[in-house]
C-alpha cells in the first residue's frame, strides 16, 4: 500500500531534550488518522515539523512518494497540507466567503470579485457537505461555524491532508457531533485527516487508525477495530487508570444558598435561579455554553452584579459583595476562562501562584510577602500536579505555559486555599488524562472532606462522573434537576436542548 504521507523516524531535539524520538507515521488517502497523547507527548512538535514550522533534527517526510522539506507553512500549504489551528485565525468583521478566500482571492485586474468568492465557497460547501452561509459575518457565527470556515479555508487552499489540532476542545456536544460527521465526509471525498486530540471517545468514533505518543515516542499504532478506550488510555498514560475513590455518604447542612438570582443586561441573562449546595456535595451544572452558566458563576463569585435575589455562603449574605469579601467567606474559584480571570499572562508562575495568598498571615509579615516560605508551597504544587514550567521554572512567564499546565497551576492554587466552598468551572479543560484523573480525584477528596463544590463543565462525562446532583441550565433558567442515580447522558442532552424529561423534578419558575 502506498501512503499519501509518510513521516519516517522523525527526531527533534531541543538541546538535550528529545521532543520526538524516531516517530514514524503514515497516512493513506481517505484515511482519518488520530494522534493521541498527553500534553508534552510530542504531538504538537510532530505537526509543527510537518507544517514546516520546525525543522527536524533527523528523519524524512515523504509526500506522494517523493521526499520533501518544508521551509515554512507556505511551503506546506503549497504541497496540499492544511492546518486548522486550535485558536482560529479569522477576521471577525469580514464575511465567511472573504475569510475563506483571503490570500487567494478571485480577481480580475486587481479587483476583488466577491461574487465569485461567494460562488466558489458555496460550491465547496456543497461538495464536502459542510453547511455554511458564505455571506454571514464571521463575528456573528458560532464557534462551530467558525471552525467550519477554517476547514473550508484549507480546502479552498487545495489541501489534501487536513490537520485538525484539538478541534473539539472549544465545541459544544452537538457541534462535536457535526464536526465528527464533517470529518467522515471529508474522508469519504478522498481527503486525508490527521486528528490531534486526547479525547479517546471521539477518536473511537471517527478514526481509522490511531497512533499513540508518550514521552516523544510512539507507543502504538492501532486500527480502530482492534482497540478500545481503555487500551488507548493505557498506551497513553503507561499504566492502568485508577478508579475514582468511593463517595462517602454525607448528610450535612446547606453551604451555598442561591435564591431567585437574576442578572439582566439589556436582556435577561439569568432568570430567578435558586439552588443549594450542601456540605459534602458536588453539584454539577450542565448546559450548552451561553445559557447563563457564566453569569451565574460571576454573580455568585462577585465578578458581576446581580439585579435580584440573594446569595448566602456559610449562612452569611454575600450578595453583590466584593470578590475579596466572598473569598474571605469561604470561596475558591477555578474560573472558566483561565486567561481572562485565572492568570496574569505576563507574570511569573510564582507570582500567579501567589495571587490570593499574599495577605495570609503565613506568607505575610508586616506587609512584606514571605517569598521563600511561599516558594516551597509552589514547588510542592508543581511536583504534585506534574506542572511543566519550562526552562525558567518558577520564574517562567505564565503565558508561556501550555494551556493544560496553566490549568493545573490554577487548580492547585484554588484547591490550596482549602476553603469550604469551591467553584470549579471547566476544571479539566485542555489537560491530559493523567492530570484529569488527578484533578477529579482531588475534587472527590475535597467533597469527602465535607466541602461543597459547584461544578460547571461542557463535558457531560465529567459532570456525570463527579456530580451528586445535576442542574441543567437553559436560557438563563434551571431547566431541570437530576439526581446522580437517575442522570444519563440522554436525559441531560434533552434538557440542554430545552426539552423536558418525564420524572425529573422540574421547577415551576
Amino acid at each position, binding site marked *: 500500500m502506498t501512503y499519501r504521507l509518510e513521516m519516517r523516524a522523525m527526531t527533534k531535539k531541543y538541546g538535550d531534550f528529545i521532543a520526538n524520538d524516531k516517530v514514524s507515521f503514515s497516512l493513506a488517502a481517505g484515511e482519518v488518522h488520530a494522534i493521541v497523547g498527553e500534553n508534552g507527548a510530542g504531538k504538537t512538535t510532530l505537526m509543527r515539523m510537518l507544517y514546516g514550522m520546525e525543522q527536524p533534527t533527523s528523519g524524512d517526510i515523504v509526500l506522494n512518494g517523493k521526499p520533501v522539506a518544508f521551509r515554512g*507553512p*507556505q511551503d506546506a*500549504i503549497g504541497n496540499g497540507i492544511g492546518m486548522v*489551528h486550535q485558536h482560529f*485565525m*479569522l*477576521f*471577525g*468583521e*469580514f464575511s465567511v466567503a*472573504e475569510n475563506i478566500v*483571503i*490570500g487567494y*482571492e478571485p*480577481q480580475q485586474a*486587481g*479587483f*476583488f470579485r466577491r461574487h465569485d468568492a461567494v460562488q466558489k465557497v458555496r460550491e465547496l460547501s456543497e461538495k464536502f457537505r459542510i453547511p455554511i452561509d458564505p455571506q454571514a459575518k464571521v*463575528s456573528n457565527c458560532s464557534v462551530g461555524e467558525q471552525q467550519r470556515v477554517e476547514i473550508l479555508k484549507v480546502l479552498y487552499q487545495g489541501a489534501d491532508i487536513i490537520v485538525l489540532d484539538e478541534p473539539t476542545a472549544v465545541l459544544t456536544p452537538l457541534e462535536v457531533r457535526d464536526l465528527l460527521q464533517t470529518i467522515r465526509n471529508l474522508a469519504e471525498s478522498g481527503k486525508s485527516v490527521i486528528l490531534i486530540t486526547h479525547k479517546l471517545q471521539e477518536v473511537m468514533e471517527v478514526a481509522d487508525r490511531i497512533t499513540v505518543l508518550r514521552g516523544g515516542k510512539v507507543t502504538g499504532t492501532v486500527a480502530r477495530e482492534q482497540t478500545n478506550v481503555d487500551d488507548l488510555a493505557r498506551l497513553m498514560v503507561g499504566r492502568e487508570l485508577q478508579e475514582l475513590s468511593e463517595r462517602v455518604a454525607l448528610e450535612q447542612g446547606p453551604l451555598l444558598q442561591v435564591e431567585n438570582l437574576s442578572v439582566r443586561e439589556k436582556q435577561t441573562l439569568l432568570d430567578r435561579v435558586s439552588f443549594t449546595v450542601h456540605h459534602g456535595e458536588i453539584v454539577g451544572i450542565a448546559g450548552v455554553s451561553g445559557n447563563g452558566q457564566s453569569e451565574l458563576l460571576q454573580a455568585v463569585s462577585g465578578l458581576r452584579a446581580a439585579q435580584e435575589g440573594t446569595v448566602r455562603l456559610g449562612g452569611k449574605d454575600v450578595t453583590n459583595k466584593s470578590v475579596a469579601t466572598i473569598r474571605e467567606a469561604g470561596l475558591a474559584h477555578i474560573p472558566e476562562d483561565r486567561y481572562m480571570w485565572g492568570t496574569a499572562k505576563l507574570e511569573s508562575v510564582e507570582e500567579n501562584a501567589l495571587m490570593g495568598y499574599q495577605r495570609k498571615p503565613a506568607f505575610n509579615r508586616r506587609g512584606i510577602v514571605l517569598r521563600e516560605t511561599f516558594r516551597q508551597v509552589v514547588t510542592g504544587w508543581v511536583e504534585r500536579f506534574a506542572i511543566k514550567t519550562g526552562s525558567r521554572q518558577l520564574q517562567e512567564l505564565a503565558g508561556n505555559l501550555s494551556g493544560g499546565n496553566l490549568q493545573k497551576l490554577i487548580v492547585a492554587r484554588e484547591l490550596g486555599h482549602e476553603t469550604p466552598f469551591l467553584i470549579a468551572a471547566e476544571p479539566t479543560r485542555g489537560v491530559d488524562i493523567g492530570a484529569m484523573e488527578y484533578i477529579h480525584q482531588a475534587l472527590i477528596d475535597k467533597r469527602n472532606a465535607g466541602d461543597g463544590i459547584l461544578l460547571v463543565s461542557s463535558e457531560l462525562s465529567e459532570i456525570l462522573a463527579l456530580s451528586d446532583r445535576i442542574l441543567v441550565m437553559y436560557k438563563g433558567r434551571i431547566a431541570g434537576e437530576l439526581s446522580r442515580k437517575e442522570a444519563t447522558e440522554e436525559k441531560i442532552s434533552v434538557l440542554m436542548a430545552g426539552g423536558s424529561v418525564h420524572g425529573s423534578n422540574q421547577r415551576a419558575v
Partner: protein
Amino acid sequence: MELLDWSLVSSTIRMVTPILLAALGGALCSRVGIFNVGLEGMVLAGAFSAIVGNHFTGNLFLAILIAAATSVLFALLFAYMTIKLKANEIVVGVAINFLALGLTTFALRAIFGVKGAFYDKDMAGLPKWDIPVIKDIPGVGEVFSGHSPLVYFAFLAAIALYVFFYKTVTGFRVLAVGSNPVAARSLGLKVTGLQVLAIVICGALCGLAGAQLSLGQVTMFSEGMTAGRGFIALVAMMMGQSHPIGILASSFLFGLMDALSIRLQGFSLPTQFTSMLPYLLTVAAMFFLKERMQAASNNQQSTR
C-alpha cells in the same frame, strides 16, 4: 452680509480640503492598525515645504511635489520608529508633531530670515480651475467651480480610497491587516509592507493637505499655521469610522464650522469666540462617538 449663502458653501469646500486629505491619510493608517497622531506635524511640514518649493522653483507643480515628498520623509520616520523599532505610536506621533513645529519655525528663520510668518506678494498661489458648463450655472457654478486642483483631487481621493478598500484585492488585504494582524501574518500576507505603504501614502496626502493650506487658501506660511487641523482630521477620521465616505461627511461638518467661524467674524463676534467653533464641535463629537468607539474596542478584544 447674510449668514448663509452660496459663497459659504464654496468656502466650506475650500476649508474641507486639508482636513479631508489628512483624514483620508489617517484612515489608511487606522485601517492597517496604526493610530497616527502625527497628522498635524505632517500637514505642517507639507505647508512649509510647499512655500519653500514655490519660492525656489517658481513652479507650482514642483512645489506640490516637494510638499508631498517632505511629508513622506516624516511618514517614513514615523514608520521606522513604530514598525521597525516598535515604539509606541502615540509617543512617536506627538514627537513628529513637535519635530515639525520646531523644524519649520527654525527653517523659516534660516531660509527666509523672518519670524512668525513668511509672505511674498510676487508668489503665485494655486490656480483656480473653472469647470466648463458647471461654472455657468448660477449658484452651483459658484459652489463647485473655481477651486484649486487640490480641492478636486481631495474629493477624487475619497472616492478612490473607497474603491481601493472595498473593490480591490490589495485594499481587502489592507483591511485584513488592520482587523487581525496575527491572522494576516499567518496567512502569509505582507503585513509590514502593507503598513509601511499605508503610512507613506498617508504622508503624501498630508503633504498635499499642507500645500492646500499654504498655497490654496492664502499664499503664505506662518508658524503653526495648521492650528490643530491635523487633530481635527483625526476626529473626522474617527467620526467617519475610517470609512472614506463617512470621512467625507464628517470633514464637511468641520469644514462648515471653519467657514462659519470666518463668516461670523463679519457679524462683529470676537475672533477668539468664532475660531472656537470647530473645536467645540470636536468636543461635542466625542460625546456622540463615545459609545461607538467603545463598541469598536470591545469588538477588537473579542477577535483577539
